[in-house]
């Protein structure tokens, strides 16, 4: 279990690094954007809120930098990110927490589908290396994985929503309905999520296929696979249980590296589909120069990604005995 402890340490250090980056960035930049922001708040805020914002953006010049840093950490740990400019008197934390479930839902389902499908296709393609399937699918997915997510999203909107109006072109549910747990609402959510999910899966799957293919080519040349062949086991069994099973592990480790790219694509896809999650919130924050919201979003996304990586590490430690025995 030492590996888990070590990963926990890394988790904490990275959270600290992200917090510190968040602290340094506004202070490194030429002061005008945040000063302009404060000018816009004048007369609209109570002193306490102004105080919190000044602490967050380094506008308290009479305080020393370490004192500002301590104040900032204290505010952030207590979930006090200030007020959003875009959704004015709402707190940033409230706005972000409303959007987070949407993104988690979309990211979770698409990542799992893309991973399972991609791993399976990669397995088959490596098994039939040099064949027609490999010759067509592999370069095909190389091309697909270089398509910008948001652009594919735009094309999907054009084909499915504008030209044919088969599917709704944006948002998470029908405009006039309220959020509830009714059957019709769940249906709406599913229909609205279909296009963004499709976009993400199509562009994300290529990476999984390619890494799985490369891993699988490695395991296929192992002696235990030759042994299995010599024993006359069924090809399907060798492919899945012998070569495939061992090729999945590095793919799972690659999950951590891929996640950053997946999240970036996901955020852009949400922007295109005006899906009510973190990505769309980011776009609104950019449009309105809403720095408090933007910085809180950066922290939340980083934290979510880190938790996901930690989970992948735990799964990896459970599945792969070697990671457990290593000191």
């Amino acid at each position, binding site marked *: 279990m030492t590996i888990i402890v070590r990963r926990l340490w890394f988790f904490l250090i990275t959270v600290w690094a992200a917090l510190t980056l968040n602290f340094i960035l506004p202070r490194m930049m030429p002061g005008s954007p945040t000063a302009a922001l404060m000018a816009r708040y004048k007369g609209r805020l109570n002193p306490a809120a102004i105080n919190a914002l000044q602490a967050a953006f380094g506008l308290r010049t009479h305080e020393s930098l370490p004192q500002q840093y301590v104040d900032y950490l204290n505010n952030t740990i207590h979930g006090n990110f200030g007020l959003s400019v875009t959704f004015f008197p709402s707190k940033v934390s409230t706005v972000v927490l409303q959007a987070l479930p949407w993104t988690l839902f979309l990211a979770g389902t698409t990542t799992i589908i893309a991973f399972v499908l991609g791993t399976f296709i990669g397995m088959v393609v490596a098994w039939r290396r040099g064949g027609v399937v490999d010759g067509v699918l592999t370069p095909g997915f190389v*091309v697909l994985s*270089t398509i910008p997510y948001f*652009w594919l999203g735009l*094309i999907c909107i*054009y084909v499915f929503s504008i030209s044919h109006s088969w599917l709704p072109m944006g948002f998470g549910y029908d405009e006039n309905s309220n959020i509830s747990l009714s059957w019709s609402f769940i249906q709406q959510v599913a229909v609205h999520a279909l296009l963004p999910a499709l976009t993400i899966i199509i562009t994300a799957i290529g990476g999984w296929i390619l890494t799985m293919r490369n891993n699988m080519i490695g395991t296929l040349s192992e002696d235990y696979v030759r042994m299995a062949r010599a024993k006359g086991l069924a090809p399907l069994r060798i492919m899945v249980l012998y070569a495939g099973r061992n090729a999945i592990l590095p793919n799972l480790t690659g999950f951590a590296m891929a*996640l950053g790219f997946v999240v*970036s694509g996901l955020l*852009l896809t949400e922007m295109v589909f005006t899906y009510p999650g973190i990505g769309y919130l980011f776009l609104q924050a950019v449009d309105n120069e809403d720095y408090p919201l*933007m910085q809180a979003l950066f922290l939340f996304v980083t934290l979510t990604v880190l938790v996901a990586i930690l989970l992948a590490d735990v799964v990896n430690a459970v599945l792969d005995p070697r990671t457990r025995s290593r000191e």
Partner: protein
Amino acid sequence: MYQHIAVDDEARVAPVLPQSKLPARPGMLARVGSVILSNRKALVGVIILAAIVVTAVFAPVLAPYDPNATVGPPGAPPSHAFWLGTTSQGQDILSQLIWGSRETLIIGIVAGLAATMLAVLIGVSAAYLGGVADNLLSSVTDIFLVIPALPLMIVIAAYARGGGMWVLIGVIAITGWSFGARQLRPQALSLRNREFLESARVRGENSAYVIVFEVLPNMVSLIVAIFLGAALYAILAAAGLQFIGLGNPSDLSWGTMLYWGENNEALMTGSPLWIVAPGTCIALLGASVAFINYAVDELANPSLRGARRKRAKK
């Protein structure tokens, strides 16, 4: 024990050995050329990339109109005069596409190079210096590897609003180096105890000389692969950032074309080519880089090569 490690390391860097075995070393260019011709994926990639580079270089000759001037009716469909139609301001989409290739390519190349240089600097230093420095640099690399890049890029670019191309290049380089550094460190580590480095050190060469003239030449194929990956990342990231309006919208590039197309609701108003065309070009450029990268990967890792069977038949 020491020797045992050295032998083990030698086996691991085996792919770099064959070149020294060749009797008369053919020119680097000739070798790369023959590899490209023999690999269909690489060939396709090189042809697409060359076409885009030629377009960018000869933009003033190739573009039929001034890309920023109103030269036709707004939102015109494709016609003989305007092959890809016009924007809602009556600008020629084809001319914008041709001129826009320049900034897109420059960002890809410069940001890709900058990220690669950072990766080499940090990855190789970590391996070569070892000890505390290695721990520190490796941790920084790991942290940058897992911090999601797009949100960080958005925050930095939003603070430096209106900075244009150079801000984008800086932001991409800062967020894009960690993947390469992570790949370079183990290879540099495996070279560290090789005998030719030992002999250079015994000769009294300083660390900088050893790194630049002895270590780096042995990692060329990996560095090229890292550059291609970084360039691909830069092209896609720049397109994304410009699309959401974080570039300088008055610059002309494929990303800003997407931004203006989307903001003028090109898809809704019947000029889809305003968005389809630059997106297709970005995808083509990205695919060409990915194909070349894929071929380099096969070159560096012989087990991935499909050609092995043919050779066996001979």
